[in-house]
């Protein structure tokens, strides 16, 4: 329905109760339920991490985030808040990663394939530009443009309001466009 917001409170009960059921089961030690949550939320965690840490480190960190989440799951009181809670765990894990390795370089994310040099460089530049956006835009755009999630999915996974996601997508895209255009302008001879 156009204009209707999808907050954790207003999301379809099937989604909330479905995920909440998985969370409750996983909290009780059900490994199968947790694997299902992993499959559902891995992309969200991947996108949030990619917005903060070098690409090479992201896949391992995704696994670490889920292992940490599984250990801490009994401390999550509201099972329906799992998505937002997991996103916070991922952001904290990214911060810890930087405290440990103190490395950041956009160039590390340039994976050059022979004969496709300009596309790789352009992708790395776009990634760097997204990483330079404010946090709310950065996460939402990363989930949309990199992970291929729809606005609806982003709202459902992160627990953000439908309207917030929409605003973040559009304002973030506007900012990204400006920055990429600015970069191209500076790059021209």
């Amino acid at each position: 329905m156009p204009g209707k917001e999808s907050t954790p409170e207003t999301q379809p009960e099937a989604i909330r109760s479905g995920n909440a059921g998985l969370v409750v089961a996983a909290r009780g030690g059900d490994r199968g339920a947790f694997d299902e949550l992993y499959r559902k939320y891995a992309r969200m965690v991947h996108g949030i991490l990619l917005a903060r840490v070098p690409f090479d480190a992201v896949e391992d960190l995704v696994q670490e985030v889920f292992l940490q989440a599984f250990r801490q799951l009994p401390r999550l009181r509201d099972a329906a808040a799992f998505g937002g809670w997991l996103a916070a765990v991922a952001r904290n894990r990214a911060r810890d990663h930087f405290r440990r390795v103190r490395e950041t370089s956009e160039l590390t994310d340039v994976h050059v394939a022979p004969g496709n040099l300009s596309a790789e460089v352009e992708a790395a530049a776009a990634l760097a530009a997204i990483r330079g956006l404010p946090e709310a835009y950065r996460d939402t755009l990363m989930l949309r443009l990199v992970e291929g999630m729809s606005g609806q999915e982003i709202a459902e996974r992160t627990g953000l309001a439908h309207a917030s996601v929409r605003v973040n997508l559009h304002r973030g895209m506007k900012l990204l466009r400006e920055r990429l255009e600015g970069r191209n302008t500076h790059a021209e001879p």
Partner: protein
Amino acid sequence: MQSPEKQDYLWDASAPPDPEVARLEQLLGRYRLSEPPRPLPAFRTARRWELILWSRAFRMAAFAGALALLLLWIAPWTIRRVAEPGDAWRARTLAGAPRINGQPLGAAGDLRTGGLLETDRASQAEVRIGLMGRVTVLPDSRLRVVETRPGRYRMALERGKISARTLAPPFTFVVDTPGPTAYDVGCAFTLETDESGSGRLRVTSGWVQLELDDRQVLIPAGAASLLRGGGNLGTPHFEDASEVFRGALARLDFEQQDAAARAGTLAELLAAARPRDVFSFQEMLRTSSGDERRRLVDRGLELLPPPPGVTRAGLLHGDDAMIFAWRQQLGLGEPKRWWIDWRDILPQ
């Protein structure tokens, strides 16, 4: 008609593509998480005690506990640093023109080991010994600093009168006189003496111990002891005792009387005594003997019944434990404790 969202490619990829967004998707897709994601490695669930250890409440409690231990550890050191006077006591003029080592004190000055503070008939001074004690030196007095170091603050009142209030631990604040030495047991007191050692100690709070040669006398609040030159220490007595009682006690303590006269004086003392004055009897038991001791015990037992286990025979025998237990019946209390009697250090 489709909803605006269905036409918004940025919101939903099933809408007509926005070329710019689609190109970015195509460029950035190389960073996408591979599907299906790598399986999670084997892991075990956390044990209950691990969850408790990781909990924020536990970490905060552990931090608070560690902080409390640290504070407890450094508190005595901090209190000493703040409360102790260092190598000098602070003197200030209250009236007239006191002198330190013969020089005018002025408004205030330091009094160090060996230093002499003098007041004439018109002057008064106050000496502060850190937060441990405060001594008012009254007119016509000479007060010398004998020793000042942590755990020992010793002065000599060579002549005159002082009024002291202390928070020092028992037996760390000491005043020598030409006669006995006064040991503070956490208290407030006034002490006066002349060059021969005659004078008086009055205790207004807590306890003071007077020592002369091998004799020791503990004096509680409300009581006093007369001092006489030549090594005589008067029996402590409550100041609110009758004049007859106090006069008889002074004659027994300091006058040379024949046996008959002494017996008459003792009879006068016993007749004038109240239950509270048995405190003086108990002190006299330490120096009396024979018939005198028997009369003190019998009159004392009339006035102040003993607690169970204390017998007349034991008291006549001079049993220290029984005398002590009998004294407890007077309810004189314990030596002063600074955390209860801290107000005594405040200006009056």
